[in-house]
């Protein structure tokens, strides 16, 4: 008897979310690379992260890759678009952090608008992860970017009214972030829904743990959310995923520590890139739809891995 490949079929699908002219979600398979189980209308996307201010204490590997442009978010974004072929740009407004530079929402909105106007790929704008300030910042960013559709975030259980409101008021999409918890992810989508934000506007940020630093928790929460959505038909969880991978991967000691300090770890440059790429590939297998990365070489690696599935 000939071998017949088993196929996992689900009668539910992930909601398709359109960010400008780019779509994510729409699949009825567990992850966006399981094309052997069924059609994947919108394969996962790679966004490259751009900070709104020159990063401090970056690992040399990253400085070598983007150090020529990393004091100018517009140039940086253009380089990611033109040279590194990113699908999207994720602008992180780290300078708005009240515990740091505390830049105003208006200034941040100007930067976001300048990046949006310069690029011709879709834009994600993330705050500094200070709930209250992010609410304020996203309102200003949403208004400044009105007319094009961007992905705003993250909304959490404290600021979902303001961030969700910015999405509703200016027709943007919103990333809903919960702390690696399937029940809380569902609750936040319900709360956003109660506010009037439709599922077609929501992407889930399940909170990403880097390789070696909690990635297994993120992995299993993403799987549980996908199974609830596809196997149980849980309408509130049929959202695509966004994962802030670069940020977490490059925090790891293993990605940064020099060869002289840890000779057994091997070549520093390769190591950091692999750390980011492997984090990404793990989460790709868990169902990531938008992977936010930092290094152009890991972008290439992840893309070549994905292409294997779509041959």
């Amino acid at each position, binding site marked *: 008897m000939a071998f017949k490949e088993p196929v996992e079929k689900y009668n539910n699908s992930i909601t398709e979310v359109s960010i400008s002219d780019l779509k994510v979600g729409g699949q009825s398979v567990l992850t966006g690379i399981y094309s052997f189980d069924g059609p994947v209308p919108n394969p996962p996307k790679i966004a490259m992260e751009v900070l709104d201010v020159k990063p401090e204490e970056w690992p040399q590997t990253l400085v070598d890759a983007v150090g020529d442009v990393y004091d100018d978010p517009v140039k940086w974004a253009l380089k990611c678009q033109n040279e590194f072929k990113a699908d999207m740009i994720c602008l992180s407004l780290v300078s708005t952090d009240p515990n740091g530079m505390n830049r105003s929402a208006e200034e941040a909105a100007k930067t976001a608008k300048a990046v949006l106007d310069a690029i011709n790929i879709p834009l994600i704008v993330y705050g500094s992860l200070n709930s209250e300030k992010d609410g304020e910042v996203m309102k200003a960013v949403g208004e400044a970017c009105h007319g094009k559709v961007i992905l705003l975030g993250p909304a959490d259980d404290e600021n979902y009214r303001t961030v969700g409101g910015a999405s509703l008021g200016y027709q943007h999409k919103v990333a809903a972030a919960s702390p690696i918890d*399937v*029940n809380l992810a569902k*609750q936040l989508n*319900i709360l956003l829904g109660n506010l009037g934000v439709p599922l077609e506007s929501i992407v889930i940020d399940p909170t990403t743990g880097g390789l070696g630093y909690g990635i297994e928790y993120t992995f299993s929460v993403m799987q549980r959310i996908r199974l609830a959505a596809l196997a149980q038909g849980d309408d509130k969880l049929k959202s695509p995923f966004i994962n802030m991978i670069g940020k977490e991967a490059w925090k790891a000691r293993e990605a940064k520590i020099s060869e002289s300090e840890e000779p057994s770890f091997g070549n520093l440059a390769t190591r950091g890139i692999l750390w980011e790429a492997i984090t990404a590939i793990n989460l790709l297998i868990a169902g990531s739809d938008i992977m936010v990365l930092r290094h152009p070489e890991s972008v290439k690696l992840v893309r070549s891995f994905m292409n294997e599935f779509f041959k």
Partner: protein
Amino acid sequence: MSNKKVITIAESINIMSKTIGPAIREKNKAPIQKMAVEEAEAGADYLDLNLGPARKAGDEMMEWLVKTVEEVTDLPLFLDTTNPVALEAGLKAAKKNLPVINSIDARQESLATKLPLVEKYGCDFVALTLSDEGIPRDANERAMCLVSIMTAAAERGIPNEKLWVDPIVLPISVDLNQVLAFQEFLPQVQEICPGAKTTCGLSNVSNGAPTDELRRVLNRTYLIMLKKLGLYSAIVDSYDKELMDYACGGLQDIEDLVFKMMDGYEPDMSTLTEKQQHYAKSVRVLLGKVLYSHSWLEL
């Protein structure tokens, strides 16, 4: 009392409580006696006296608490503390009924210090399925804990009938798999330990839910579900009148609905009253058919 359904142990006399804690420390009888009377009037079969770890002067506190409560009620008591010295003081102080020790678990220290009390006084005890490895992760680990306790008890000639097995209820908002593991394990208790009774800290299932009223919906639903799975008794919030009504034989329509759903029946929500809908939605969540969220009743 003929149609009594689930034996209830009232949970509210607890040193963690804002009113009871200070009353115990200041030896102020009035608030405690008031609560004991209220719990008895609510239909409780036992009163749990929870002193927590009671490391400092636990024996003196337990002795005083037992006497204080026995002055106003004839109900038997659960002595709820991890301190064996306090347990013995309570066993000695009780004059009306022999109290139940709450609890003895499978940790070596717990078995070594508390089983001798069971042997000496002939009292019952809650057998909590917890071991030196911590809280069991599934039904099998619960069984291993229970076997350890049973074996240690049997070595001292203590029969299964003395055990009130508590397989540890954990919150639905934290880990569905633990809620399911409890449901899987409960019916196995009679096979593993014939003659034993079962009990549980029911209210823990709703820990983390946003309001007291929402918590009660989960507690009530879970009690009915566990009744179907053979639960003998539960440590409960006796101030929840609807829950006590059920425990005392009421809510037949709700019990029918919950039991049928546990056998696979899917009701048409539009034909149910709002109250029935709340139970039905909670059953779905507690069976893992729908993923829990704090807004589970609104969906």
